[in-house]
Each structure stands twice: as structure tokens, then as C-alpha cells.
């Protein structure tokens, strides 16, 4: 029953969209990149493979900053995938920017997906509480609680950290610069004083928002940039 509940929790929202995915791949093979891109972007939801393929298609269409954004999001989901790394590096090399690496904690927990971390965390909670309940009856467990409790607490904390690090909100403030060179300003106004320039394809962090302007952090500087000049990873495909 528990298995059924867990499966329903994690599987009901998962959609295996083999058909449009494969169809888009066939269009890509035929060199119909525009059609392939439309089809990839029409697929509801996200996966690292879908983002990777969309990135490849955008690379073929010479839309490198957009491709970098998709590759970057794919990398967040599968940090250890060598294909994503290779193509992202290739895209970054084209823009002659330097790609900042993923945070160390995301790399550390990259061997599991977000849902696997959640499942592991729930399992850990049940094991922890189950042993706690069993401890009311089993004397040996109560005696072992001196080392078992800290160990299980550490396990729960670790799994919780994994859940936190794999959440989409972890990359919610990341964005990619869209034009070849973008100029930031000191204020969110079109005629404000120019602050610094940043090449297209660069990864920046969004630290604030004011109407149609984003405050970005890059190169140890912060400046305002029009919203249409950045691609937020959380808004890809929308």
C-alpha cells in the first residue's frame, strides 16, 4: 500500500512524452531545426534530456545564449552528465565567456535527481521514526540510541540538504545574458548612467527586480539591465 501511495505521489505527474520527443529528434535529424525547436518547446514539463536536446537545437539555429540557458538548466538537473558539460563548454567557447561552475553542493548531490532526493528523505524519515517507535519496545535500540540518534539525525540532515540543493528554486536567481554585449546601468532607467558591459552568454545572478528591469550581479559588480536582455532559467520555454 505504501509503495502504491509513494508511486502515486511521484509518478502521477510524470509524463512519458516519447512521441513528440522522438518526433522532434527526427526533425532535428532532417535539419528542420525550427520545427524541432517548436516541438521540443511544446512538451509540457522539463527533464535534463529535454533541455539538452532543446539546447542542441538552439545551437544549430545559432541562438547560443538561449542554448546556454537550456544547457545550464540541464546541468542543474544532471550535474554529472558529461554530454551536457561538453556541449555547454562548446557553446560557452563560442561566446568567449567564462562559465561559472555550479555550486559545490549541487555537484555533491548531483548523483540523484530532485525526486530521488525527496523519496530518499521521506524514506529516511520513516526509518528514523520507525526505529524511534521500535525503541519503545526494544531495549537494545534504546541502548544504541547514544550513537544511533546522532547518526540518523545526520542522515536526515544530509538528505534534507540534498532535497534543498536539488530544488528548482536553487537556480531561480540564475539568468543568461541574451545580446552579444549587454550594458548595465546604475539605475533601472533607460537614460541612467552606464555601469559595466557584459558579454552575451554570461551567467549572472538576479538580485532584485523593478518593473521590467533586473538588477544583476556579475564580475563583482551589480547593475540594472532590461528584463528582455536576460534569459531566466526558471522561465525557459514559457
Amino acid at each position: 500500500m505504501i509503495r502504491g501511495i509513494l508511486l502515486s505521489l511521484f509518478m502521477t505527474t510524470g509524463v512519458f512524452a516519447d512521441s513528440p520527443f522522438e518526433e522532434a529528434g527526427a526533425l532535428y535529424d532532417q535539419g528542420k531545426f525550427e520545427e524541432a525547436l517548436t516541438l521540443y518547446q511544446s512538451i509540457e514539463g522539463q527533464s535534463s534530456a529535454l533541455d539538452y536536446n532543446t539546447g542542441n537545437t538552439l545551437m544549430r539555429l545559432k541562438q547560443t545564449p538561449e542554448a546556454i540557458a537550456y544547457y545550464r538548466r540541464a546541468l542543474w538537473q544532471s550535474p554529472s552528465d558529461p554530454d551536457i558539460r561538453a556541449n555547454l563548454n562548446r557553446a560557452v567557447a563560442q561566446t568567449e565567456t567564462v562559465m561559472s561552475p555550479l555550486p559545490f553542493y549541487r555537484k555533491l548531490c548531483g548523483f540523484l535527481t530532485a525526486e530521488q532526493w525527496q523519496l530518499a528523505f521521506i524514506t529516511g524519515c520513516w526509518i528514523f521514526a520507525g526505529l524511534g517507535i521500535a525503541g519503545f519496545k526494544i531495549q537494545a535500540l534504546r541502548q544504541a540510541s547514544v550513537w544511533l540518534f546522532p547518526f540518523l539525525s545526520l542522515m536526515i540532515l544530509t538528505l534534507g540538504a540534498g532535497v534543498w540543493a536539488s530544488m528548482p528554486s536553487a537556480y531561480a536567481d540564475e539568468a543568461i545574458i541574451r545580446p552579444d554585449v549587454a550594458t548595465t546601468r546604475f539605475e533601472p532607467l533607460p537614460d541612467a548612467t552606464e555601469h559595466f558591459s557584459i558579454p552575451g552568454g554570461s551567467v549572472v545572478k538576479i538580485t532584485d527586480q523593478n518593473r521590467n528591469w533586473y538588477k544583476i550581479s556579475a564580475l563583482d559588480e551589480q547593475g540594472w539591465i532590461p528584463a528582455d536582455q536576460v534569459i531566466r532559467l526558471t522561465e525557459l520555454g514559457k
Partner: protein
Amino acid sequence: MKAFQKFLISIIIPLSFLHAEVHLELSREAITTDDTVDLLLKFESMHITSIPRLPLPEGLEMVGVPRREAISMYGVSDNRVRYTLRAEKPGTYKIGPFDTNGKAGNEKIKAVTLTVTQAKAIQSTENLFVTMESSADEILVNETVEITLSFYSRVSTGKIQSEDFEENGFEITEFQSVPTRPKRIGGVEYNVERYIAQLTPTKTGNITFDPNFKIQVRERQKSSGSYYAPYSTRIQRIKLKEPLVLKVKNPPEEGRPDDYEGHLGTFRLNASVSPTKVNVGDPITLRVELIGSGSLQQALPPGLSESDDFKVYEPKLLTKSFRPGGRSGQKVIEQVVIPKHGSVTEIPELTFSYYDTTSKSYKTLKSGPFPIEVKATLTADDASIISSLPSMGNSPELTKLGDDLIYLKIRPGKIQSVSTLQPGIQFLGFSSLPFALWAFVGLVVRQKHHRVSDPSNRRRQEAPRRLRKHLRQLEEKGLDIYTRIWDVLSEYLSARLNLPPGELNTQDVSNILQEHVSPETLKACEKWMQKCEQSRFAGNTTHGNRRHIREQFRDFILQLDQELGK
């Protein structure tokens, strides 16, 4: 030298493995007096405990301190020590060889040679300028030269972007950053960023480089004038101080061998044949090794061509190893050849012709012929079958044509909405439920434990049950009814109110009960207690029906129990 050897041996031998190897490697084979170069002392499959001091030839000096680097894979550690060197004067410096004379296999650390040329003099007063230089101004087609791109700056710079070179008539590798020292020009010190690439022209003519660069420059804001003024970054467009022009020409026609295929450099050719005693139709492996520097990237060791004597198969490239920079290295091929008849006595001579850029002349390397014994054991029909085998001929080696994207993923993986990836209420519910369950079970267990471990509480909890048992005993004959009622009442009240049974009195009971029961019940209780006391001290005072009294008491005590139980 001896001191170094002893020192090296004392480190290497105790810690060596059977297949350990030690060798030297330079990050670049040629530098200018402005540059530094990394010398790597590599210990493969070997641990080292301290950094050896290298005896360097006169004129070479070490920059900074050596750094130890370790690479561990599958439990085997490769250690290496990186020494950064520079030369004050141009010349050719031979580093090594060092002989360890150790038990670990008599490793001999082979010498490496570093060529240092005089850096070109530069005159400039600009804050930021770029130069591009070539290791030779006149080069031959297919000859590889080193292109050096140097950015000199007196201001803080960031990223550098360059427009793509239009690769027309030449091939060029990616520019790699090389370590460089600051340089004084006109008495002012400039920071230098240097990049090198290998250029190989593919046709004759002039090649001109005059690219544009975009450089990020960080400056304090002039408007403020304060030392603490914030930096601003701007992009400065800049061109080369002088365009670089390379003259590319063909090697001279004079003395050109017939089999010359455009290769340049300095090469060695080695070849071997195995087995040398075969029957007609048996395969013979021809192994050919080409070692050298120059156009080795484009060259392939020579193989045997199809003939009346031999059926030949496509040569297979076994090894292709290049030193850093890709200008020198080794290529090894293996080719299977089959003698067609018993009168074959040798594998013909192999030749490789090239233009020696050092001696400025054509040279032809030769290896063989290789004598073999072929025994004719096949019939004429068998020989014709061998002849009819598909001829592979010499086909070009497999080359990597380009650097492209890695192909699409075939499987989509599990496509999910972002809301699913974000932990929601279900996740919180499933993860907190076990702890809630734990807390609930803990509460139940604690209550149970409390009940068991507290005698007064246990008496209070058990009082109603014991009351019903005692009420049944009221029906038994013998003893005065009020004596029996007193026994029941006193035991019940003492258990319920946690009072000592022997010290129960009406006043104490009334004081406690008045907070928990109705006045009517309290009054009834007092009445029953008084009756019992009268009976106890005045003898048998039973009036009326014993059964009726019992029923009245039952009604009263059950009402009291009900009210106390609320």
C-alpha cells in the same frame, strides 16, 4: 649531480613500484627570454614524499617554488613536480639526463632540451597594446610555426575577446595561455598576458593577421576622484600594434624526390616484419614507426602497396602520440600483407621522403628490404583465391574532421512539471507523518508507563472497577450492612481521592468532594458516612429493609463514581 642522484634515489627507491616510471617533460620546447616554462618531473605509479631539487644548467633559473601535484586513479597515484623556469639569455639548454640507478627498474630520466630566443624589443607609451609574433617570418607550406599573441597593459583588464581569424590558406590551433613575467618597457612595468597557437599554412602566398580585440578595462570612476571610488568596467576595442605578415612558399623544386608528398621537418623511420617464415597465403605483419617533428600531424608511416607478390590490407594506425604543442611525436602503423606465391623472398624497401627544415634539403628515409621465407603449399586455385580477395590498398588514416556537438539524447527521461520538482504539501505530509506517529506512540507509551509506575494513580484508575466488585459482595449475608457499606465506601474514596484508608473522615472527604461533585451528591455522601459511623459506634442500628438500603447505597455510589469520573 651526484648529490642530486643520491637524494633522488633516497626518495624514489623505497616508495617505488615495479612498473614505476620517471621522466621529464617541458610544457613548451621553445620560449623567449620574456617567458617562463613549466618543467614537469613525472613519477608514474609512484609516490614521493618530498620535492627533489633539480640541478639546472647555467643560465636557467627557477621562478617561485616547485609545486607537487598528484593524480590518483583506480588506486594508482601519479605524482609530478612542476618547476617554473626562465632564462636570462638566449640559447639551447639541456636539462638532464638524471640516472636514478634504482631498484625500481633502473629508470633513466631522459634529458629534455629547451630553446630560448631573445625577446623582441618593444617601444610603446600606450597603456594597453597588443602584439602578434611568429617564430619565423618566412615559412614553407605544411611547416608549423608558433604564433604568439601578447597583451601588454598598465591598467586592470578583464576578459579578452577576439574576432575569429578567417582560416584561408592555413590551419591554426586554439590559443593557449602561457605563463609570462611582467615586462619593463620604457622604464614602466607592464603586465603581460601571452597566448600561443600553432599555425600550419596549406598554400603559398602571404598571410596577414590584423584582428580586432575587445578587452574589458576596469577603471575608477573619474567623477568621484576618491580613492574609494567604485570601479567601472568598459570595453575597449584595440588593434594589433603591427599586423603580422607571414610569407609562405613551397619547398624548392631542386632535388625533390619523386615520392615526396609535402612533408617537412625531421624524421626517423623504423620498420619490422613478423613472422619471417610463412606459407603462401599466411599473413605477415609489417610494423612501421615514424618518429620526428614537423608535419607529423599530416604524415603517415609508409606501407606496402598491392603488387603481384603481395596481397595487402589497409594499414591500421596503432599509436599516435604527440608532445605538447603537437609538432613532434610518434606514429605507428601495422599492415597485414600476404605473399601470393612461393617465389617471394623479401618484403620490398619502404621509403619516406621529406624536406629537412634544419639542413634545408630533401631527405629520403629507407627501411628494408626484409628477407622472408615463403613455402609454396597452395595449389594454383588457392593462389587465385588469394588474388581475388578484396584489395584494401592504402586508404587515408582516420582523422578527426571537426569538433561538433554531442548528439541528442534518445530517451527523454521523466518529464515533470516544475511544481513536482519543488517539494509540496504531499512531500511535507509524507515526511512529517512518521514523526507525528512517533510522537503519538510516545504519548501513549508514556501515559501507560505513568499509570503503571504511580500507585496512587493506579488505585484511582482501578477504583471504579473495584467498586463494582465490592458492590456485588454487599449481597453476601453476615456482618452489619453499614459495616459492609463503610468498607466499600472507605476503600473507594481512599482510592479515588488518594487518602489513607484508616484516616478517612467526613470533614476531609467533604472538603475534597465539594470541588468535584454536586451539592446533592456531597450531602448524600456525608449522610452515608454519618450513618456508617453511627452504626460503627452505636452497634447494629439497621432499620428497614437491608435490600432497600443496599439499593439506595448502590444508586448513591454509582452517581458519585460517575461525577468523579468526569
